[in-house]
C-alpha cells in the first residue's frame, strides 16, 4: 500500500482554517447581537430574514450531503478531493436543527398564514381552504413533527457517513465503498423525498393556496448547486497550502466546473418548466404566485436571475480553460452562491410585500447566521484530515498530476 507511509498530520487542514474560523465567529457574534436586538424591535421582519438565511445555509449543508452521497455512488477523484470539505459542511446539520427551533417556538404565526387564528383571515376563500388544510396537513404540531423527522433522517445519514469515513483515517486500509454505496443509494432517495416535503412545509406553504409539483426538485437542484460552489470556494482557499496544493489537479477542478454547469442548467430547466406551464395554464390559483413576483419591482429580480443565475454563468462555464482554473472559477462560484441567495429571496419575500422591499434583516441575519455557520464549518474541517488516507481510492488523489 503506497499510502501507508503517508502520515495523517501531513493531510490535516492548514492552520489558516483556524484563523478564518475565528474571524467568522467574530463576525457572526457581532451580527448576531445586532440581529437579536432587531428581533425584539421588529420580530416579524426578523423572521422573514431568518427563514431566508436558514434556507440559504441549509442548502449548502444538505447539498453537500447529497453531493457526498453522489460521490459514493459514482466514485471518482473529483469527489475524493473535496470529500472532507463536503463532510465538514454536512456535519453542521445539528447546528441547522438548532437554528430551526426559534422558527418553531416564535416564528410560526409571524411567517405562515396557516399558523394564525382562522378568524383573523379576511379573505373568505382562503379561510375556507385553510379550514380544511390546517386540520389535515398544515397544523403546528404536524409541522414540528415533520421537521423533527427530516432532521433526524439527515443527521442519521450524516452520522454514519462520518463514522465510516473516520475509520478510514487509521490503518489498515479499508474498502468501505460497498458499505457507502449501500447507504448512499437509499440515502439519496430519502434526501429527495425529505427535502421536497421540507420545501413544501417551510417555503411553499408561505402561500398555502399555491402548489407546484416541481417545487421540491427546484429546491433540491438549488441546494446541490450551492454545495458545489461552496466546495470550489473552500478548495480555492486550501489550494494555497499543503496538502491541497498537491491533491487538487486541473482535471478535478474541471469536473467541479462541469458539475456547476450541469446544475446551472438543471436549475434553469426546472425553473423554466414551472414558469411556462403555469403561464400557459393561467389558472387563478397558480398564476397569482408569478403575478406577485413579476410586478411591483419584483420582476427586476426575476429578470436579473434569468440573466445572472443562468445566462451569463452558462456562457462562462462553456469555456474549458475557465473550468480548469480554480483561481478564476472561484469568482463565479462566489457569484452563484449570491445568486442562490437572491433566488431564495425572490421566492420568500414577495409573500410579505407587494412592492420590492429589502429590510435590514435580509442582510444582517444571513451574515450573522453565515458567520456562525462558517465558524462551525471550519472547526469541522480542521478536526479531520483532508483526505481519508486509508481509503483505497485515496491513492489516485495522492499521485502527482500527469500534466
Amino acid at each position, binding site marked *: 500500500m503506497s499510502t501507508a507511509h503517508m502520515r495523517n498530520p501531513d493531510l490535516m487542514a492548514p492552520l489558516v482554517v483556524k484563523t478564518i474560523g475565528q474571524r467568522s465567529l467574530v463576525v457572526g457574534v457581532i451580527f448576531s447581537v445586532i440581529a437579536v436586538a432587531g428581533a425584539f424591535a421588529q420580530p416579524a421582519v426578523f423572521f422573514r430574514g431568518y427563514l431566508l438565511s436558514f434556507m440559504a445555509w441549509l442548502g449548502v449543508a444538505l447539498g453537500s450531503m447529497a453531493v457526498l452521497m453522489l460521490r459514493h455512488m*459514482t*466514485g*471518482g*477523484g*473529483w469527489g475524493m478531493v473535496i470529500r472532507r470539505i463536503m463532510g465538514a459542511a454536512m456535519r453542521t446539520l445539528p447546528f441547522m436543527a438548532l437554528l430551526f427551533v426559534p422558527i418553531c417556538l416564535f416564528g410560526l404565526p409571524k411567517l405562515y398564514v396557516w399558523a394564525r387564528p382562522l378568524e383573523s383571515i379576511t379573505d373568505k376563500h382562503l379561510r375556507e*381552504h385553510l379550514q*380544511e*388544510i390546517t386540520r389535515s*396537513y398544515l397544523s403546528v404540531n404536524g409541522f414540528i413533527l415533520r421537521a423533527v423527522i427530516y432532521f433526524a433522517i439527515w443527521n442519521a445519514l450524516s452520522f454514519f457517513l462520518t463514522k465510516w469515513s473516520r475509520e478510514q483515517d487509521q490503518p489498515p486500509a479499508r*474498502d468501505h*465503498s460497498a458499505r457507502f454505496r449501500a447507504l448512499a443509494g437509499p440515502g439519496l*432517495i430519502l434526501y*429527495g*423525498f425529505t427535502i*421536497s416535503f421540507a420545501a*413544501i412545509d417551510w417555503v411553499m406553504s408561505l402561500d398555502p393556496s399555491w*402548489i*407546484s*409539483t*416541481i*417545487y*421540491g*426538485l427546484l429546491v433540491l437542484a438549488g441546494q446541490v448547486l450551492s454545495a458545489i460552489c461552496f466546495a470550489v470556494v473552500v478548495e480555492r482557499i486550501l489550494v494555497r497550502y499543503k496538502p491541497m496544493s498537491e491533491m487538487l489537479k486541473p482535471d478535478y477542478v474541471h*469536473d467541479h466546473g462541469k458539475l456547476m454547469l450541469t446544475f446551472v442548467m438543471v436549475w434553469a*430547466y*426546472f425553473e423554466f*418548466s*414551472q414558469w*411556462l*406551464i*403555469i403561464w*400557459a*395554464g393561467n*389558472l387563478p*390559483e397558480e398564476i397569482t404566485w408569478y403575478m406577485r413576483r413579476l410586478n411591483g419591482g419584483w420582476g427586476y429580480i426575476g429578470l436579473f436571475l434569468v440573466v445572472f443565475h443562468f445566462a451569463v454563468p452558462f456562457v462562462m462555464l462553456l469555456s474549458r480553460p475557465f473550468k480548469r482554473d480554480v483561481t478564476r472559477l472561484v469568482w463565479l462560484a462566489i457569484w452563484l452562491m449570491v445568486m442562490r441567495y437572491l433566488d431564495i429571496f425572490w421566492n420568500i419575500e414577495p409573500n410579505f410585500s407587494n412592492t420590492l422591499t429589502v429590510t435590514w434583516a435580509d442582510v444582517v441575519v444571513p451574515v450573522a447566521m453565515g458567520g456562525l455557520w462558517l465558524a462551525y464549518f471550519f472547526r469541522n474541517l480542521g478536526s479531520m484530515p483532508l483526505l481519508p488516507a486509508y481509503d*483505497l*481510492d485515496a491513492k*489516485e488523489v495522492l499521485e502527482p498530476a*500527469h500534466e
Partner: protein
Amino acid sequence: MDERSEQAGGKQAPVIEPGYTFGSVTDKISAIVLTRPTSTSWFIGFGAFFLVTMMLLYAIGYLLVRGTGIWGINIPIGWGFAIVNFVWWIGIGHAGTLISAILLLLRQSWRNSINRFAEAMTLFAVASAGIFPLIHMGRPWLAYWMFPYPSTMGIWPQFRSPLVWDVFAVSTYFTVSLLFWFIGLIPDLATLRDRSENRWARIIYGILAMGWRGSARHWFRYETAYLLLAGLATPLVLSVHTVVSFDFAVGIVPGWHTTIFPPYFVAGAIYSGFAMVLMLAIPIRKIYALEDFITERHLENSAKVMLATGLIVAYGYIIEGFMGWYSGNRYDAFTLWNRLHGPYAFFYYMLIACNIVIPQVLWIRKLRTKPVALFAVSGVILVGMWLERFIIVVVSLQRDFLNSSWGMYYPTRWDWMTYVGTIGMFLAAMFLFVRILPMISIFEMRTLLPEAEVKE
C-alpha cells in the same frame, strides 16, 4: 469518473472478456454480417414481423380511405391510442441518444458495445412514433401545413402550441440521431468494405464509407465531429420529451396540468428506453454468442439506470398524488379518485405494479446480472410505461370538469392493428439491421482492449 481505475479496484464483471486482440474483435463482429450464413430462424423471424408490418400498412391504408372514425376516439377522448403509442415510442427512442451522447461525454466506456444498436433502435422507434401524429391528423397529405413556409393561403402555425414545437423537436431529434449513427458507422463500414468478398457488398459499403482510409487526419477530424455531435445531441435527449410533456402540461385538464411533468417524462422515457435496450440486447447476445462483448457489467449498469429513473417516476406519482390532496382543488382530487376507483382503475393498479412495485427487485444484485430475470422485468416496465401514457391520455380526458361531457374510450381492432403493426415494423427493421450492419461498434470495442491503452 475514470472507468479504468474503477475496473482495477472493483470486483465487477469486465466490459470486455479477456483474451481478445484487435484482430479477433474485428473478426468476430464483422463475421456476423459477412461470413456467417443467414439462418432459417432469421428468415422465419424477419418474415413474421414483415407480415405484421404489412398489417400496419393495411390498417393505415384503410384509415386513409375511411378516416379516423374507424378508431375508438370520440369526444371527449380525442386523443386515444395514437397519442399513447406516439409518446411510448418516443420515450423508447431516448435510450439511444442517452447512451451514445451523454455516456460518451461522461466517459463511460462501457457504452461502447451497446451504443450502436441502441442508436439503431432509437431511429426505428422514432420512425414508429412519427407515424402516429401524422395519421392522426385525418388528412396526412396536408402535414406540411405544420411547417412555417411562406404560404399564399396565409396559413401560419400557432407557435404558442406545443404541438408545433413537437414537429420541430421530433424532426430535429430524428435528423441528429441519424447523423450521429451514420458518422459512428463510417469507420466500421470501411472495415466491412475491406473485408467483404462479395463485389456488390464492396461497392455498397464502399459508397457508404465515404472514402474512409483511417489516416491519422481522418481520425482526428472524426473524433472532433463525433464529440461535437454528442454535445448537440445531449440537450435533445431532454428537449424532446420535455416538449412532449408540454403537449399535456400547458393545457388545463386535471391530470395534465402539473409542473413536474417535464423531468418526470424525461425520466420515464429513459426508463422505458433502457428496458427496450435490454429486451433486445439479451436475446441478441445469446443468439450471436456476444456474451464476451455485452457482459454482465452492461446488464447490471442498465439495470441500475432503470432502477434510478424508475424511482424518479415513482417520485412523480407520489408528489402528484400528494399535491392533488394538499391543494384542496376538487378537480385534481377527483382525478386522483377517478384513477383509483374509476372505470379504468384496474389499469392504474397495473401501472403501479409494473412501474413501481415489480422493478424494485432490481435492488437485488444477483437479479441484475440474470439475463432471464432482467428480460422479464424489462418487459414488465415496457407494459407499465405504456399503461402510464394510457392513464395520462385517456383517463384524464375521460372525465374532466363537467359531468355532461364525460365519456368512455374503447380501442377498436384498427387501433390494435396499428399499434401491433408498429411493433412488427420496429422488429423487422432490427432484424435487417443486425444482418447487414455491424451491430456493435468494432473500432470502439478495440479501444477497450489492453493493447489500446497508451501511456501518457
